[in-house]
Each structure stands twice: as C-alpha cells, then as structure tokens.
C-alpha cells in the first residue's frame, strides 16, 4: 500500500466559524438495526455540541451528527461528530458527549506533515 500524503482533514477548531453559524444539523442513529435520520436544531456553545433530538431519543443514545456546507469541490467542508446524547433539559435540548470528531475542508488540502 502506498501511504497517502495529501489530506483534507483539518482540526475541528478550524471550522469554528461553520459550527457557530449553523442552527441545524443532520442527526443519525440506529433504530433497531436500520439507520434513521433527521435534521434537528443545533447550537455550538462554549465548545459543546447542543442538539434538540426528535422525541423518542433519550439520554445515552448513540448518534452521529453532521454539520457541513458547500456544493462544489473546493467549498466542501464539514464536521462529523459521533457520541451519545446527554441529559435533556426542559426544552428538549441535549449536549452531545463526543467520542470521535472528524473535520474536513477540501479547500485546504495539504500534505499531512505540512
């Protein structure tokens, strides 16, 4: 196998502007062995991923969340967060506890060590 030198991966912090700007996210979860998904209200506050999941999803549910933008090649960037839902507040919002966060920006491709 040839090592790949060029990457589109960026630190999630590089996309802080996108996270701050967006008020919805795409949320996916495992519904009895099949995927389910919805667009949900989202807010990135104090470095935390806040979501308002659909009713029926409770604390501890494992979810994947996508916040992305762009249509064309060099505009495509986004953040994928995998984690679990925290406790719901009285308005139905929960803070995600991330287990893995990936971010990419096709406009910032570069060598891995560059």
């Amino acid at each position, binding site marked *: 196998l040839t090592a790949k030198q060029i990457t589109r991966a960026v630190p999630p912090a590089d996309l802080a502007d996108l996270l701050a700007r967006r008020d919805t996210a795409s949320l996916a979860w495992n519904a009895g062995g*099949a995927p389910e998904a919805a667009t949900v209200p989202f807010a990135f506050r104090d470095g935390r991923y806040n979501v308002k999941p659909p009713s029926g999803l409770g604390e501890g549910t494992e979810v994947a969340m996508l916040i992305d933008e762009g249509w064309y090649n060099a505009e495509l960037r986004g953040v994928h967060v995998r984690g679990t839902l925290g406790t719901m507040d009285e308005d139905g919002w929960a803070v995600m506890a991330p287990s893995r966060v990936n971010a990419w920006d096709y406009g910032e491709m570069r060598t891995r060590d560059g």
Partner: protein
Amino acid sequence: MHPASPKVKRYLDAAMIARVATVSSGGKPRITPLWFVHKDGRLYLNARADSPAVKAIRANASVVVLLSPEKARTRSRKVLKLKGTATFEAGKQYSPGMLLRFALKYYLSPGGVRSFIASRRTMGARARYYRERAGEAGGIEITPEGAEITTPA
C-alpha cells in the same frame, strides 16, 4: 408519499448534497455528505470503496437520505427524507449520459466553474489527492422505498 411523486422529483432536482445515514456492521450510526445525481427515481453517488459509508452499506444496505432544496433558494427549512436500499459497485463505469449529469451539476455549472477558478491555489494538492486514491472509486445506487417531507422541530 410515493418516492416517484413529482414533489419528490422537485426536491431531488433542487438538492446538491445527499446526506446518507448508514449503520455499520457494529451498529454504529454515521451520516455522510455525498454528491449525487438522480434518474428514474434512483440516486447515484460516488464514493471510495474503503470509505466508512461504503463499508456500512456492504454490511447493511438500509439507508436514509436527507436532501435539502438548496438550489431553490427558498427560506423553507423543509427536508426530503428518503428511506431505501443501497448497493455499491467498485470501479463503477457510468454511462456517458450519467457522467454528463455529474459534470453539468458539479463542474460545468456557473457555480462549479467559479469554484474551480477560485480554488486554483490548491489545485495541485487536489490533483494529487485524487491521484493517490485512483482505483478506489465506485458507485452507490440507492433505490428509495419511502419518502416524506420533514421540518426541524
């Protein structure tokens, strides 16, 4: 709503990105943004064979696709949700007609040309990125079985 209804087609025509939800063999959810074109009610997407989305589809063909009518430039926050099954074909050779659909949508449209010109600074890196991954590409085909229009709560 029937996935072949004219309303579904309007959403497909107006959407630029398909956000594809999958579940891995270990039960992990994932949602992946992908370019797509559609024909006769089916969605065709490009993906790499070793991508997490393709690995999940090979293990579990059920998918949910979220599509926003981005090109419609409406303030509507409604989203089309399709449920269906997906297959992946490594090294998929699309017909010239399908390749033209991709090209017209993502490269030869005014926005695609503008983006290409604006991104010339990283063109070398992007060319190398795709060269390094040559031979890994394939095609996902999604057959929708159900459709509904949803709104964020």
